[in-house]
């Protein structure tokens, strides 16, 4: 759970950095997107690196989800009679249901930008939009409900990370003193702000017309 979670964190940092290229304009963003596919050529085939990353992520996702649901089931079995006046169960709800929400978001996100390439904007459709990463990005976030979905997902991600990153450090046994424990807590909150905040910059820049 900890290792796979940290794989996601590493991936998210790279992904966020890539998205910020949208601020440098259409050319820079599209060149970057193409470069991801030619990276490592000729040792790797076209798109090779991307597929290596995808396989690592899929394996991590299966591992992470499996561990999450196993812990969830174990928790249910370990306390079959619930408290009448308990708030105990709330403490894991946002990790667990938040995780499920992130999974649903992931499916939607991949349909949107990777697998099907849906443009939700009636004013910008057709092959020259969906096959141009920058135009698809801009067209999508000019639609209010699309932005809303992404904002909600980033809130869920921030919550997930602020506990998850700390939790991973603790699981790996890296917080064996009061000081390292505090640092791990801080790192959790910092990664949530940096990652979720960083992801939100391009969509919000589009909403406010800074990227066109």
């Amino acid at each position, binding site marked *: 759970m900890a290792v796979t979670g940290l794989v996601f964190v590493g991936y998210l940092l790279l992904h966020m950095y890539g998205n910020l290229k949208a601020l440098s304009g259409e050319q820079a963003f599209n060149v970057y997107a193409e470069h991801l596919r030619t990276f490592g050529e000729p040792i790797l085939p076209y798109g090779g690196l991307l597929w290596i990353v995808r396989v690592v992520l899929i394996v991590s996702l299966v591992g992470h989800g499996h561990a999450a649901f*196993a812990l969830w089931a*174990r928790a249910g079995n370990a*306390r079959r009679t619930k408290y009448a*006046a*308990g708030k*105990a169960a709330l403490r894991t709800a946002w990790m667990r249901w938040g995780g499920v929400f992130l999974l649903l978001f992931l499916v939607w996100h991949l349909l949107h930008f990777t697998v099907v390439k849906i443009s939700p904007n009636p004013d910008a459709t057709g092959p020259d939009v969906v096959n141009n990463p920058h135009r698809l990005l801009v067209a999508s976030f000019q639609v209010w409900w699309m932005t809303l979905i992404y904002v909600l997902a980033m809130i869920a991600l921030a919550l997930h990370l602020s506990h998850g990153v700390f939790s991973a450090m*603790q699981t790996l046994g890296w917080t064996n003193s009061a000081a390292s424990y505090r640092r791990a807590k801080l790192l959790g909150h910092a990664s949530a702000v940096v990652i979720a905040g960083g992801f939100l910059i391009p969509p919000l820049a589009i909403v406010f017309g800074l990227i066109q």
Partner: protein
Amino acid sequence: MNLTLRIWRQAGPRHQGELRTYKVKDISPDMSFLEMLDVLNEQLNAAGEEPIAFDSDCREGICGTCGLMISGEAHGPEKTTTCQLHMRSFSDGEVITIEPWRANAFPVIKDLVVDRGAFDRIIQAGGYISVNTGSAPDAHATPVPKRNADRAFQAAECIQCGACVAACPNASAMLFLGSKVTHLAELPQGQPERMARVVKMVDQHDAEGFGGCTNVGACSQACPKGIPQDVISTLNFDLRTALRGNR
């Protein structure tokens, strides 16, 4: 103070239980929570009803026998044991819900009394430590750095009350287990069996049916001794080292 109490009543391990409502009057704010229950039990006795069963022993916060879920908080609203909780922490007219610790590994024996034998079996599974018998060695015979001594001592404060399990949304006993493992792991006397001990204790923990830890931290907040969550990190560190084969 006048209070309304909703208390879990259960005649025996296999009986169905339910919350029943009682009223107590003229409670002194300086009474402990258990003394307040004693007053209620005297009322029940006088009325010819079965008194409420609850556990206590030292009543000074050191034995770990007492422990009640009070309106959803283990040992109530203060950072202390139920016996050291005073009625001034509540307000006049309050409705207080009192339940036993809830975990499958802690089956209810009667009313508010649960069987915490699972903790004893985890301690037992840990086994012995190798120290020489005979006359007590000089206090400075085995030097222990202050940092390690302090941390071992802090971990050793655990009184095995079970509040960490009761408060944990996963009903995991990792804070208890972490404090026991850290206590010995920090000391020279704990080294020879350190790796074998952690594996055996974790196995017993899981076999007892406690849940898995997700580092929520409700345990440390509920712990009357303020055992910090970082003892669980030490437990994880030792377990990982042991499983890599360095027994």
